[in-house]
């Protein structure tokens, strides 16, 4: 008889245990428990003032929690911030670029700040600029770049130390639709490279497309977390289905989960209805978000 060992499960990239952050009387983050699986794209969603940026700042070694434990890549930022920073890339919700520098100098500066050996700067910068599609702007001044390009440059900066974890606070804000699509593709590419990405965005449809897991915050409290489908199932709410017929009429049905959706489709076909479209409406991330939150801010 041979014993088969179960493969060891990788510890989460980020783990928050009962994390609270207070500023005087204001509770910015209220006893949050959260786990971000390695290799996932994890979306943090919430209205303004929900505590997303504070949570990001604690993960990014900038803020100390009032209570609770933050673990990033197996290290506690409070005790060993350097070890976390060496393996993490953080892109805050502001651009924060030096306008008076050339793109190449800017990345060299941060490569130096992360202790990347000077001999590796050339290759690192070249591959990063290729990745973020700024190779043609290598010798341009940062102030000559568009907002989308600066955003991509910030992303390149966050990647300069080849991090295992990327923390991106509102990376798509201020970008035009094309730049958003490009950013989404880029993040998928980074996920394929094995990186864990934590991202916040106001554009929920975007997060729905890229995130394997999400967490919804409101007033500093965690309302739900996990894969979007699991959250929807947790809520136990039905789905709304829209059926459009050949004669142009549209009908909406409330069904319970996937099984109900299948049953409805079968019934309509059996009834001989001339269906030209059958789709789920109003149960995406936006719908989940709207149902879970009340738009309250601190």
């Amino acid at each position: 008889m041979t014993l088969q060992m179960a493969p060891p499960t990788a510890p989460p990239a980020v783990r928050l245990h009962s994390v609270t952050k207070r500023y005087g009387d204001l509770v910015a983050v209220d006893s949050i428990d959260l786990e971000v699986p390695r290799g996932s794209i994890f979306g943090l969603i919430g209205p303004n003032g929900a505590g997303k940026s504070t949570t990001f700042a604690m993960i990014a070694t900038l803020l100390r929690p009032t209570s609770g434990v933050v673990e990033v890549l197996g290290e506690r930022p409070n005790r060993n911030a350097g070890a976390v920073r060496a393996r993490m890339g953080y892109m805050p919700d502001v651009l924060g670029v030096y306008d008076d520098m050339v793109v190449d100098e800017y990345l060299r500066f941060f490569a130096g700040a992360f202790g990347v050996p000077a001999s590796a700067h050339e290759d690192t910068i070249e591959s990063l600029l290729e990745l973020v599609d700024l190779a043609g702007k290598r010798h341009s001044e940062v102030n000559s770049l568009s907002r989308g390009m600066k955003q991509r440059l910030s992303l390149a900066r966050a990647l300069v130390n080849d991090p295992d974890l990327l923390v991106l606070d509102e990376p798509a804000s201020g970008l035009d639709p094309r730049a958003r699509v490009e950013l989404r593709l880029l993040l998928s590419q980074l996920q394929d490279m094995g990186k864990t990405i934590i991202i916040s965005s106001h554009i929920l449809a975007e997060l729905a497309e890229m995130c394997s897991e999400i967490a919804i915050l409101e007033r500093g409290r965690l309302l739900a977390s996990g894969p979007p489908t699991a959250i929807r199932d947790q809520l136990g709410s039905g789905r709304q289905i829209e059926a459009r017929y050949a004669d142009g009429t549209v009908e909406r049905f409330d069904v319970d989960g996937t099984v109900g959706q299948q049953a409805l489709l079968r019934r309509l076909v059996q009834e001989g209805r001339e269906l030209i479209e059958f789709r789920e409406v109003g149960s995406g991330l936006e719908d989940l978000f709207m149902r879970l939150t009340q738009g309250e801010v601190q």
Partner: protein
Amino acid sequence: MTALLSNPVLVREMRSRMRGRRAAVLITFWLAFNGGVLAVAYLGAENIAEDRFGFAGFANTVAISRGVYEWTLFAMLLLMVLIVPAQAAGAIAGERERQTLIPLQVTLLTPWRILLGKVLASVVFLGLLVVVAMPLLAVGYLLGGISIADVLAGAGAVLVSGLLLAALCIAVSTFVRRVQAATVLSYALVLALTVGTFIAYGAYAVVDQARGPDRTDPPDTLLLANPVALVSDVVGDFSNTELPSPFDGVYRLINDQQAFDVAVDGGAFGPEVARRQDGMPFWIASLVMLTLWAVAALGIAARRLDTPAETER
């Protein structure tokens, strides 16, 4: 040393400072102002010598050179005191204003390395200003009244004063969010050190005088943090200068104190160096005090920049 010079913050700061026209304009203005003061001092000293002796021959160039040297050095110190707050105040406040501080804080650079990079950049830039002005100071040497050692000591004292003021201004910069506020605070600090200490000294003397004849002189510690007093003591005093010396008043103020035991260094033509009762020359005590202040201020600033922090800074 290599580690110090390879500090990415230093490299970035130097690039930023030297790029564009600002540095060139500043250096041109610096040279023009100091050169102008030198020319006026030279002509003034020559006129005084002519009035006194009827000619401005070789014998008087020694006396003229001293005046030229002291006034040029004074102009450099004055300009340095005016330039340093403007240059240093934006060191950290500017990073905050541009929102570049957070990306910097999440790198592997420690707060001390960030601050050291900023201070070193100030040293290099102020050093450049002093070096480009050396030919002006050397005019005094060429005229024959002062030695190379005098030139180097004077330039060094101005540079060190500027550096210590810059370190203090950089520390101030970590406590405010706006460059404008940091600049105002830095100028206030420099004013307090350069003028405020004299006012405090004078006020002490007036109060003391009102007490009656058995007065004691104001304590010299009131002037220890004053960069003008530091430079004055390094420059020393010559009685045979043609022009009224800009440092003479301060130097005599330091020397005339009862607490001072005046020793004469360098023979009949050498500068007198004021010594404190414990035997330490005034300029060394001043240097130690300003250095301690600067290091302490940078230490507090480093703590302020340290992350993770309780609140976002």
